[in-house]
C-alpha cells in the first residue's frame, strides 16, 4: 500500500460496486448526551458525505468534543442514533473503530518515546503489516514534514510538530474517516495553514473523509460543508456560501466621531438597524457599494472610516446566536473560567 491516489469508494470492491459519491458516511439522528444535569448535546442531526471535509464549528463548551467522542465510540449517547462508515456506533463499536482515525483535542502522544516509536506502536495495535510498516511510517512522516525528526524524542517537539505527528498517527492505518478535534488550536497562523495543506492533500490523494471541529471561523473556509453548533444544538448547516447567504448582501462598518448620534440617524434615514460593536457601527445591506454614498449623506458627524466586505462566518454566527463566537484568542484560563461559570449557571 502506498499513498498513491485512490478514488473514494475504490475499496468498496469487497462489498460490490463503488457506492454513489453522495453517500453519507456519517449519519446522526436526534443525538442527545447528558452529563448528569448538564445537557451537552441536545438532539442533533448530521450527514457527512463521503470524501468531504466537514467542519463542526462552535464556541467553547458547545458540545463538539462530546459529539466526536460519541461518533468514535468513546462515549455512549443518552439517546438518538449515530452511524459511522455504515455501522451503528452503539451496536458495532469495533467495526467503527477499525475504520476511523482520531486526533484528540488534548495531546495523546507518549513524549518519552521518539516520533517513530509512537507510530510503530500505533501500527502494531492497528496491525499494519510488518512488511509495509516501515515504509508506511516514513510516508506519513514525510507527509506532515517530520521525516528528518523521526528519531527525536517527542518531548523535544514544538506544539505544532506534535500536532502534525498526531495527524500522521491518525492516518497511519489508512482510515476511511479521520476525526480531528480542534487540530489547530493554539497554533500560530503559519502552522495552522500548514496543517490545513496536509489535510487537503490527504483528502485529495486518499479520498479520506475528514470531520473536524474548530472555533476558528476563518478555517471553515477550507471545509466543503459546515455545521454550526451552539449550546448543544445545530443552528445552521450547509456550505460556507450558503451560510453566508443567510446574512444577505454585504457587511458595512463605519466609524464616526459620534456613534450614538450616527446610529440614530442611520436608523431613521436608511431603514437599517446598525449594531455597535468594537467601536464601529456594523450593518447588513443588500448592496454595499450603492449603500456607502447614502450612508455618508445620512450621517452628520465626521466619518472616520467606512469598510464594505462580504459577510464572514463570524457574521453568520453573530446573526444566528446574537453573540460573537469567541473573544479573540481568549487565554485558556479565561476559557475555563467561562466554562465553569456556564456550568454553574446551568445547574442552577
Amino acid at each position: 500500500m502506498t499513498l498513491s491516489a485512490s478514488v473514494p469508494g475504490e475499496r468498496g470492491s469487497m462489498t460490490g460496486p463503488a457506492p454513489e459519491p453522495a453517500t453519507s458516511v456519517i449519519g446522526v439522528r436526534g443525538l442527545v448526551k447528558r452529563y448528569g444535569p448538564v445537557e451537552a448535546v441536545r438532539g442533533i442531526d448530521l450527514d457527512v458525505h463521503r470524501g468531504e471535509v466537514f467542519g463542526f464549528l462552535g464556541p467553547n463548551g458547545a458540545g463538539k468534543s462530546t459529539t466526536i467522542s460519541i461518533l468514535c465510540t468513546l462515549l455512549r449517547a443518552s439517546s438518538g442514533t449515530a452511524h459511522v462508515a455504515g455501522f451503528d456506533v452503539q451496536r458495532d463499536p469495533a467495526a467503527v473503530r477499525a475504520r476511523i482515525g482520531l486526533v484528540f483535542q488534548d495531546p495523546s502522544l507518549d513524549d518519552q518515546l521518539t516520533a517513530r516509536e509512537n507510530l510503530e506502536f500505533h501500527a502494531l495495535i492497528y496491525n499494519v503489516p510488518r512488511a509495509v510498516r516501515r515504509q508506511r511510517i516514513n510516508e506519513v512522516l514525510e507527509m506532515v514534514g517530520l521525516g528528518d525528526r523521526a528519531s527525536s524524542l517527542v518531548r523535544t517537539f514544538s506544539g505544532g510538530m506534535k500536532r502534525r505527528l498526531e495527524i500522521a498517527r491518525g492516518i497511519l492505518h489508512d482510515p476511511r474517516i479521520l476525526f480531528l478535534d480542534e487540530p489547530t488550536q493554539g497554533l500560530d497562523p503559519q502552522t495552522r495553514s500548514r496543517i490545513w495543506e496536509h489535510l487537503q492533500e490527504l483528502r485529495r490523494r486518499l479520498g479520506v473523509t475528514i470531520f473536524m471541529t474548530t472555533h476558528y471561523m476563518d478555517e471553515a473556509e477550507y471545509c466543503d460543508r459546515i455545521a454550526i453548533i451552539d449550546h448543544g444544538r445545530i443552528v445552521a448547516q450547509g456550505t460556507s456560501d450558503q451560510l453566508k447567504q443567510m446574512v444577505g448582501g454585504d457587511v458595512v462598518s463605519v466609524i464616526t466621531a459620534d456613534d450614538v448620534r450616527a446610529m440614530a440617524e442611520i436608523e431613521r434615514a436608511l431603514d437599517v438597524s446598525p449594531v455597535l460593536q468594537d467601536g464601529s457601527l456594523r450593518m447588513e445591506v443588500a448592496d454595499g457599494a450603492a449603500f456607502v454614498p447614502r450612508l455618508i449623506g445620512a450621517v452628520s458627524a465626521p466619518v472616520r472610516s467606512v469598510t464594505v466586505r462580504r459577510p464572514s462566518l463570524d457574521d453568520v454566527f453573530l446573526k444566528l446566536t446574537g453573540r460573537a463566537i469567541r473573544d479573540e484568542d481568549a487565554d485558556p484560563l479565561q476559557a475555563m473560567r467561562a466554562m465553569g461559570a456556564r456550568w454553574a449557571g446551568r445547574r442552577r
Partner: protein
Amino acid sequence: MIVAEPEAAPTAASGVVGVGTRSATLRAVYMIWYRDVLKYWRDRVRLIASLAQPLLFLLVFGLGLSSSLRGAGGGFGGTGGSGSLNYVQFVFPGVVAMAVLFTAIFSAMSIVWDREFGFLKEILVAPVDRSAVAVGKALGGATQAMLQGCVMLVFAPLVGVHLTLLSVVELVPLLFVLAFALSSLGVAVASRMRSMQGFQVVMNFMLLPIFFLSGALFPLSGLPGWMTVLTRLDPVAYGVAPLRHAVLGGAGVPAAVAARVGDVSLFGRTVPTPLEVVMLLLFGVAALAVAIRGFRIPD
C-alpha cells in the same frame, strides 16, 4: 438518509485486518508490555534510584542490625555454631521482595499518568478489547519488578549472602510469580483511579503495612493473634517465604533452622512452596480480573 452500505473493511494491503479479534488484542498486550519495558530500560536514572531504598534497608537492617544483634550475644534463629543463621541472610530475601513490591506498585502508577496525559486514550479508541490494557500493564509491571529483583540478587555477595547457581535458578521464577501478583494488584487499584494523588494516597496507605506484615523483616511465628491473622492475609508473605527458602537453602543453612524462621503456617500446617506459588498466581489472576473490569467502566 443514513448510509447506503457499510464501507468495506480496509484490506490487509491497506493496513487493518483482524480487528477486535483475539489476535489484535494480543498484539495490543504485547505493545503495552513492550512500551513499559522499553521505558524502564531507557530510564536508567529511575532504575538506579529505585534500588536505593532496598539497598538502604539491606545496609541498615542487614549489616547494622545484624552486628548489633551479634554484639548482644548469639546469632539469629537460635542455634549457634557452624551452619547457623545470621540476620543478613534472613533479611536479604525480604529486601528483595521489597524491591519487587515497590517496583510493581509504582509501575502501575504509570497507568494513572497515561490516563491523565492521554496516551491511554489512544489505546482505548483502538479496535482492541480494553482488557489488553490491564493484561499488558500487569505483565509489563511484572517484568520490571522481576528484573529489579534480579538486580538485587547481584548484591548478595557484597553483604555476605552466598547464593548458588541452583538457588538463583529457583529464585528467578519465584520473583516473577510475586512480581505478577503485585503488579496485578497495582493495576487493579490504578484502574479505578483518575488522579495521581488518589493513587498515591491509596498506595501509601497500603504499601508499608503490606511490606511490614509480609515477614520480610521478622519471622511470622510466635506473633500476637491479631497480627498472625493479618500476616496470613498478606499476599507478599507467600512470596517472601519461598524466596527465603531458596536463599537459605543455597547458603547452607540447616533445613530445620530455615523452616523455623522462614515458613508460613496456615491452620497449624506449613504451607509448601508449590502451594504458595499457586496462591500467588490465583491472587494475581483475581486482581487482574478486577483490573479488567476497571477498564471496562466507561469514562
